[in-house]
């Protein structure tokens, strides 16, 4: 079997299965643990607390102005590469075709030149993110295998994608196979590491927001 066929055939299937079951297992393993009822009297009732909690799901996307002087740079960097990744994943014509072949849905795309520029910028930002993780005393202190490996698999997908687009280093089919294989690797790693934050971010914010709002505390 050709490498490309393997990458988008059995390897992709296995990766998707691992991804789906892995994500589900991790979420179920978090949700199905025990709960205890909170018995203290809520300040303004449960409904208001719940609505405010939902609000925190979105509002925490933007830091409170009291913190922004210290955190703005890191957050801007985080936002920038996330936006870059989203554009490249969702608006590159071959990706949309690929998604269509899997799920049968499609949407308009951006010209490949623009996406390539954004991909190069995103790659540069990812390098800056890695540099910052290594150089910043807090980030260096906190970082573990998960942080570096999650960075590695994400960056690998971008790099192989850029190589395939530029036909750089090998036959196009081989480059494409590497790109898809690196994506397969990302899917397989996804449920085990911090990439899962995409699933946790909103419930986690809403839970915190709800419990703060329940006390009438600012959130």
């Amino acid at each position: 079997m050709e490498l490309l066929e393997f990458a988008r055939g059995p390897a992709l299937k296995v990766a998707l299965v691992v991804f789906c079951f892995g994500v589900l297992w991790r979420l179920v393993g978090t949700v199905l643990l025990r709960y205890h009822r909170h018995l203290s009297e809520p300040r303004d009732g449960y409904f208001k607390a719940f609505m405010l909690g939902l609000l925190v799901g979105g509002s925490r996307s933007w830091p409170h102005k009291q913190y922004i002087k210290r955190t703005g740079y890191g957050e801007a960097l985080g936002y920038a590469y996330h936006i870059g990744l989203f554009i490249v994943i969702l608006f590159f014509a071959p990706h949309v075709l690929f998604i269509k072949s899997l799920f049968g849905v499609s949407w308009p795309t951006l010209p490949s030149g623009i996406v390539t520029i954004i991909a190069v910028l995103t790659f540069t930002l990812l390098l800056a993110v890695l540099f910052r993780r290594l150089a910043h005393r807090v980030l260096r202190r906190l970082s573990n295998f998960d942080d570096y490996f999650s960075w590695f698999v994400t960056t690998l997908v971008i790099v192989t994608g850029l190589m395939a687009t530029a036909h750089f280093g090998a036959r196009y089919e081989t480059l494409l196979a590497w790109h898809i294989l690196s994506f397969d690797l990302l899917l397989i790693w996804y449920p085990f590491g911090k990439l899962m934050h995409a699933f946790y971010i909103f419930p986690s914010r809403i839970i915190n927001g709800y419990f703060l709002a329940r006390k009438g505390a600012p959130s």
Partner: protein
Amino acid sequence: MSAQSVNTTTAGRVRAMPADLQGDLSNRARVERAMQSFALEYGSLTAFRLESCIHCGICADACHYYIATEDPQYTPILKVEPFKQAYKRESGPYAVFFKLFGLKRRVSADELENWQHLLYDSCNMCGRCSLICPMGINISELIEQTRHAMFDAGLAPAELYAKAKHQQHSGQPEASKEPYRDMLLAIGRQYKVEIPMDKDQAEVMLCVPRTDIEHYPKSVAALARVMQHLGVSCTFRSDGLVAENYGYYAGGREWQRKISMRLINEALACHAKTLIVPECGHAYTALRWEAAELYGKPLPFRVRHVTEYLAGQLQTGRLKLRKAGNGAVTFHDPCQLVRKGGVMDAPRQLMQALGLDLHELENNKAFSFCCGGGGGVLDIQRAAPLRYRAMESKLREVDDSGAQTFLTSCSDCRATFDDAKAHFNWEQTPHSLLELVADNLG
């Protein structure tokens, strides 16, 4: 009781710090107890908090210990690393995977000992970090849970352990020359105000911070005077006088429950409809938000901070206040009241009624920095040098406010600022908002 922990080989990358040990337990037994304690804490909400961290490091920028020292070991989420580690390795959905590939080390006794400094000496449980985390993780809740495990493993700071132990069996965190009941009655005589004591029936039950009994008797008198002025039937109860809960500080769940139960039982005995928490922030958290959980059912009475109660009386028109001078004042929001308790407007309503010219601190309300004494830190002797460093920016903010009068509504915050005043020869003096109210009753 005190031991110097020196082994960092298995303790990871946190500097060895002096740690206090309770009991004659083997290292293995300590770890086992901590693990059992962690297991009691695992639930869905906790799991969400433990699973969500993306190691972005942003929480460091909220914490005055990191801001003052730039030492990465004071990153808030790092303070709960043993809990995270234990959860991921022993209980999380991929525990097998973490164990198999050695991605999470087993928590060791050395590690726990070294973390005592991070969980107690350098954390006020102030919750400022919980407002910054982009993932919405309530880090200070995790710190409280991790303190439970430290306590169970016999690894609480000696001062907190001793006071919690004393309080759970005697009702007082430490021995006093006379019983607190007699001291309270003597304060009444000194300030010429009736101290209602041990009534069988009262609408409101009162309690006091022992800090006030020992250091700020005028505050005790102020509480009694304001209640007398309002004409509300109220009482102190000699078996439930002390507002603070050292079980909460030390991390002893059962002792915290026992200490709270004293007040709950006394409130039930006098059929109180409201329990007023005096000017004490942690007492508010312990009684308003945690007591019902430990009691096992909703409390059959309301719990209100004295500023909340008085602001309510202002609104109904029962409380009238005179204007209290012209100078500028500033106000320190106690963390447990505002950020962890939701009491933000009440003190401001009182200050407005007093006609005060309030100059807010640069970081105010929810974003106020802790005084540095919260979470029991004021009681931990060895923590003092770090505490002074961490609170310097707060003192600067007070100076920069341009206020002549500095107010707060927590006697532990007040004691911390008074201590800083002596240490730094600081010019400001912290005053009690309640005392100002009592001095200006209309």
